[in-house]
């Protein structure tokens, strides 16, 4: 989930990628801050629910990791 409101400026992983905890998956720009959003757990990226350029609110689901 998005921890903050902002704009998705970068998606650094693809569906099917094996992610490690703390690996950067999304970059969200908000209030002049560039925020690297990391994977909270080890797992496989099953789904990406946002696109670059999209504006998101706090708690918007960004992706599904299993």
């Amino acid at each position, binding site marked *: 989930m998005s921890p903050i409101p*902002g704009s998705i400026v970068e998606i650094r992983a693809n569906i099917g990628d094996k992610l490690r905890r703390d690996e950067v998956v999304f970059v969200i720009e*908000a*209030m*002049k*801050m*560039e*925020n690297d*959003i990391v994977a909270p757990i080890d797992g496989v990226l099953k789904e990406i629910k946002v696109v670059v350029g999209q*504006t998101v609110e706090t708690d918007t689901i960004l992706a599904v990791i299993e």
Partner: protein
Amino acid sequence: MKSNLIHEIKEESFHIFFFDELSTTQEKAEEFEKKGIAEWTVVVTKTQTAGRGRFHNRDWFSPHGGLWFSVLLRPMINVDKLKGFSLLPSISSAWSIRKLTDLNASIKWPNDIIVGSKKIGGTVIESKINMKKNIYSIVGVGINANFLEEVFPQRLSAKATSILQQTGKEIQLKKLLVTVLQKMHELYNMIIQGESFRIIEEYLKLSDIIGRKVGIINKGYQITGLAKCVGENGALIVELSDGSRKKIETCEHLIYI
């Protein structure tokens, strides 16, 4: 890693590393972060070869004579409690320029430090967030100090200025650095103590945006409205022509109309 390092000092709460030349101070601070170095570590350089502003595709002209630095912070608290954090570097910079010079430096929302209509400084913050916890933030500041406008490339010469250009005098860079850091430290402690409302009070003393008609440009679209207030998290609230209010949390360009 230390090939470019000139010297390091400990001053009050700050551990400051001075470099001769870096690609960017943000990158060097990130290197330090990965080594587990404590917060309030500061990276300063005489010149950056690839200085950047907000969004990585925006370069920041960083010649000799400017103050270019980054600060490593580790708030380690929920991002919901970091209201006003994005405003720290611009408030600290504008406040310090006012304190040390006769210039009426102000902040153009969200992060430009201006004198008159020209930009004299800029800031950038890069953070790493796991779920809702802020793991670290690197706060970058660039202030055009001791060089003249003629040094700027043509694309910047009409819209950028410097302290030397405006005052006719050079400023002591270390004094400017420590003044900005001290102010940033004071403001940061306000946030950590849950007093974010005081950050907005400080911001509004340095910004003349309230009551002005502004255009906010994002992805080629422009919204026009009257700037009504700055919210606790730093968002700009504008009143549109139909009387409705819109919260602006991101913008590529803001213009005064």
